[in-house]
C-alpha cells in the first residue's frame, strides 16, 4: 500500500490460515494497516473516518493492492482512493463499480476497544452492527440498506418541505414514499430479525464461556412500531408532518441486550460488558462464516489493551481457526501462539 493514512509505503505478508501479530507503539501505523485491510472488504474505514482522512497528508491519492488466496483461487484487488472522487476498484484487473463486488470475495471481522459502544452506546451502533453483518453475509442487503437510507432522506425532506401543510397534493406524494419505505423498511426489519435469531445462540454461548456467569446474555430485536410499517406510517403521519422527521421504521429500532431480564447496560460490570461486545463480534464471525461458506479474516486492533489476563486468555481460546491479524502496543497477549510476529515502527515493518 502507498500513502494510506500515515503509511508512506508498506508491504505486508501475513501468515496463511494462522495468526500474525504486529507489534508497534501508538502512532506507529498499526491501526492504519488494519484499516487498510478492512477497506479492501467494505470500502469504508472501520473507525468511521471520512475518506479524506485516509490519504496521507501531502499526497492526493492512497493506493492499496492485495493478493487474496482461497484454496487454489487467486484474486487481485487494487484500490485507488482519491478524495472527492469515487474509488477506482479493480478485481483481477477488471473495473468494478459496486462495493458489494468486493464483499463477495473478501470479508473481515474486526475487533477494536471502541466496540464497547455496541453495549453502552446509542441504538444506532447496534443497528449498524446488524446491518454490517447482513452486508457481509450477502450483497443483496447492501442494496437494501442503501435503499432504506435513500427513501428516508426523500421522505424526511418532503416532510420538512410540507412545513406542516396537509394539502391533498402533499398527502398524495407522501403516500408514494410511504409505500416505498414500507416495502424496503419491512424487508430490512425482517432480515435483521432473522439475523438476531441466528446470532442469539452464538452470542449466549460465547458470553457464557467468556464470563462463566449463570445468567445468559439475551438478544432481542425491538421494533419501533406495531403491526405493518405501512399502517404505522399512516398512523404517525400527523406527528411526522409536525416534527418533520420519520418517527417509525428500521431507523428507530433497537437491538436489546439483557441479562436476567435486565438491561445489560445497568446489569453488567464494565468487564462483563467488554465480554458482551466480544461475544457479539465472535457470533457475527460465525454467522457470516455459515452464510458465506468461508471464514472472514479476523482483524484484532489493539483488542486486548483493555482486557485483563483472564479475559485475554478467554478471547484467545474463543478465536476460531483461520487467518487472524492482531496488533498490540506492548508485549504479545499472554497465551497467544502466533505463526509470525512483525514489528512496526514509524511506518516501517520489520
Amino acid at each position: 500500500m502507498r500513502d494510506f493514512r500515515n503509511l508512506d509505503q508498506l508491504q505486508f505478508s501475513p501468515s496463511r490460515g494462522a495468526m500474525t501479530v504486529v507489534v508497534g507503539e501508538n502512532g506507529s501505523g498499526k491501526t492504519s494497516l488494519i484499516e487498510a485491510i478492512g477497506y479492501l472488504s467494505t470500502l469504508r474505514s472501520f473507525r468511521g473516518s471520512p475518506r479524506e482522512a485516509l490519504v496521507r497528508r501531502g499526497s492526493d491519492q492512497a493506493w492499496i493492492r492485495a493478493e487474496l488466496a482461497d484454496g487454489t483461487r487467486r484474486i487481485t484487488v487494487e484500490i485507488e482512493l482519491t478524495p472527492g472522487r469515487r474509488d477506482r476498484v479493480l478485481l483481477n484487473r477488471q473495473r468494478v463499480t459496486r462495493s458489494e463486488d468486493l464483499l463477495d470475495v473478501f470479508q473481515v471481522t474486526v475487533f477494536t476497544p471502541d466496540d464497547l459502544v455496541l453495549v453502552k452506546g446509542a441504538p444506532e451502533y447496534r443497528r449498524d452492527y446488524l446491518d454490517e453483518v447482513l452486508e457481509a453475509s450477502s450483497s443483496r442487503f447492501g442494496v437494501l440498506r442503501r435503499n432504506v437510507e435513500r427513501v428516508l432522506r426523500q421522505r424526511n425532506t418532503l416532510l420538512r418541505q410540507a412545513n406542516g401543510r396537509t394539502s391533498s397534493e402533499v398527502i398524495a406524494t407522501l403516500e408514494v414514499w410511504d409505500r416505498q419505505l414500507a416495502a424496503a423498511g419491512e424487508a430490512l426489519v425482517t432480515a435483521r430479525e432473522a439475523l438476531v435469531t441466528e446470532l442469539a445462540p452464538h452470542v449466549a454461548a460465547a458470553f457464557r464461556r467468556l464470563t462463566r456467569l449463570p445468567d445468559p446474555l439475551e438478544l432481542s430485536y425491538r421494533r419501533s412500531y406495531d403491526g405493518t410499517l405501512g399502517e404505522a406510517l399512516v398512523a404517525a403521519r400527523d406527528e411526522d408532518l409536525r416534527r418533520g422527521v420519520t418517527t417509525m421504521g428500521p431507523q428507530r429500532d433497537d437491538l436489546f441486550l439483557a441479562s436476567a431480564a435486565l438491561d445489560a447496560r445497568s446489569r453488567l460490570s464494565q468487564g462483563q460488558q467488554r465480554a458482551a461486545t466480544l461475544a457479539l463480534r465472535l457470533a457475527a464471525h460465525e454467522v457470516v462464516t455459515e452464510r458465506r461458506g468461508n471464514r472472514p479474516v479476523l482483524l484484532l486492533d489493539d483488542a486486548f489493551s483493555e482486557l485483563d489476563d483472564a479475559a485475554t486468555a478467554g478471547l484467545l481460546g474463543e478465536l476460531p481457526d483461520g487467518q487472524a491479524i492482531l496488533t498490540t502496543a506492548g508485549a504479545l497477549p499472554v497465551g497467544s501462539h502466533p505463526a509470525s510476529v512483525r514489528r512496526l515502527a514509524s511506518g516501517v515493518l520489520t
Partner: protein
Amino acid sequence: MIVEVKEKTVLCSACFNVTVSPLCPICADPRRDATQLCVVEDPRDIVAVERTREFRGRYHVLGGALSPIEGVGPEQLRVRELLARIEADEVAEVILCTNPNLEGDATAMYLARLLRPLGVKVTRIASGLPVGGDLEYADELTLGRALEGRREVDA
C-alpha cells in the same frame, strides 16, 4: 456547429421531446399510434425506446422523476400536461417507462394512482434479467424483481 444546435432546438409542444420544429417528428407522424402513450423521464429515454423498434405509439417527457432531495415534486414535472393530453386525446394505454430505481418507481406509482381514475389502462415496463444472460450471475435484487414480474408461458 454546437452553437447552431443550441439556438435551433426547441421542445415539442405535445410531448416535450427535443426537436427543431414545433412538433417533433414522432408526434407529427400520423402513422404513430395515438392510443398508446409512453411516459419517460428524459428525451434521451425516447432515443433508447426508439432503438428497440418495438413501440409504435407516442411519448410524453416528464422532465425528471420525483425527488424531494433535489426539490422535484409533481409541480416540477410535466404532470398537468400529461393529464391534459389524456383528457384531450384518444389515449387508451399509458406505459410508465421511468427508470427502475427508487425515484423512478415512486414516480410511476404516483402517476398510476393519478391516472387510474381516468379510466385509462396504466402499465409499467417490466424489469428483470438481461437477454442472453445467465441466471447464476444475476444479482439477487434483479432476479427477485424478475420473479415478481413473472408471467405465464404461451403453450
